[in-house]
């Protein structure tokens, strides 16, 4: 039996971010942002020019997502996480601008691991390839910026009991490492 998942409101405050531990299962309810490759490039280019973004990053949580289109009557199509590592070059800049957490899948770079500790912003994983299942936890999908990027537009997602696991906590815990170790026979 798995321990029951912790119910968590999103976005969460700095103290909650610090309280999360690698390996902890959570169910997220509230609002998160969806953004991926092209939007990250744009956000960082904008911030580096000293301009402000058309939405606020302060305290926000970004879900690395590019959904498939909704059928008529659906909120969203399949909506699973994309590979977080591709966002690594942009992530420290966004964390420095107030981003408080990330949801994706896959390993992060050493620079991101350091920035997670420095800025107190944990990294969570959702089940990659479970896009149909995860879409059921998304109640609203509103494009906030860059609509011309299609599936890569920045959007606000209202989520309810969205399942995730804390992979990298702000104290240096890394569940990919810890979780795999007992099963490694090489």
């Amino acid at each position, binding site marked *: 039996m*798995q321990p029951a998942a912790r119910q968590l409101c999103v976005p969460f405050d700095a103290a909650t971010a610090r309280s999360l531990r690698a390996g902890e299962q959570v169910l997220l309810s509230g609002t998160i942002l969806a953004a991926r490759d092209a939007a990250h490039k744009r956000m960082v280019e904008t911030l580096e020019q000293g301009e402000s973004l058309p939405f606020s990053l302060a305290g926000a949580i970004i879900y690395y997502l*590019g959904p498939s*289109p909704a059928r008529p009557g*659906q909120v969203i199509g399949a909506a*699973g996480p994309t590979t977080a590592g591709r966002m690594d070059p942009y992530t420290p800049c966004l964390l420095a601008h107030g981003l408080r957490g990330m949801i994706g899948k896959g390993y992060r770079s050493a620079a991101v691991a350091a920035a997670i500790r420095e800025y107190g912003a944990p990294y969570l994983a959702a*089940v990659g*390839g479970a896009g149909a299942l995860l879409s059921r936890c998304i109640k609203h999908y509103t494009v906030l910026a860059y609509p011309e990027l299609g599936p890569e537009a920045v959007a606000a997602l209202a989520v309810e009991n969205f399942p995730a696991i804390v992979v990298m906590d702000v104290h240096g815990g890394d569940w*990919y490492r810890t979780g795999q170790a007992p*099963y490694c026979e090489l």
Partner: protein
Amino acid sequence: MRVIHAQTITDTVARLAIEACCHLPLSVRDALSRAASQEPSPAGREILAQLQENASIASAEHMPICQDTGLAVVFAELGQDAHIVGGDFEAAIHEGVRQGYVQGYLRKSCVAEPLFERTNTGDNSPAIIHLRLVPGDRLHLRLAPKGAGSENKSLLKMLTPADGLDGVRQTVLEAVQTAGPSACPPLVVGVGLGGNMEVAALCAKRAAARDLGSRNPHPRYAALEEELLTLCNKTGIGPQGLGGRTTALAVHIEWAATHIAMLPVAVNLNCHAARHASASL
């Protein structure tokens, strides 16, 4: 000479695109359920259960299994006695991809040019077409959508004969370990051996797109598929990289004749969303 109309090709490709993206093959679902019954990690079992549930929801709601409905890779085997009328063969396939991805509410993930503008083509065309001319008068089409998470972790090494079997083992292990959770394990690992650079890569792709449960017909390569599967499952990566013994559902090998001085090894990873659909015209 059998006549095949280009429109029939387009309609078939459109249907296969939707079928492949929304309905996980039964062989994959069976493999997930077998893995769930053998996985010692509780978190791993939970994920394998979620992946089965996901496949059921997708199928029931005609929703893609995964939002990354990939580039549309089409393996075509065209009988040399078939005659295609009413349009160009390749154009008919591209049009089928266009229609399938638009009508099926599949994600459009194709950019027209790789480096500068990266403008989305808006309809997921063009397809990637691998054509083989074969005896007979039929056209066999197999559409395998391939997402980026697993494709980006492909690996090609031009080993030399002295690297031998151990070099192959190390290369497969390197690909699987470097990919980790990014390729959405449990994986179907496609290994291409021999040929030259591009033949090894294509062998790996064909291997990754093979039906689960199929074996290489050559007994030594079939045994190597089993051995490499055991090796992958000793990495501890497990479902979604959260730890466990189900890192791969299968390892498939395809091989080709090669040069006296070469041992090319390519690894093409397929995620648990090992999607494909086929039709014969």
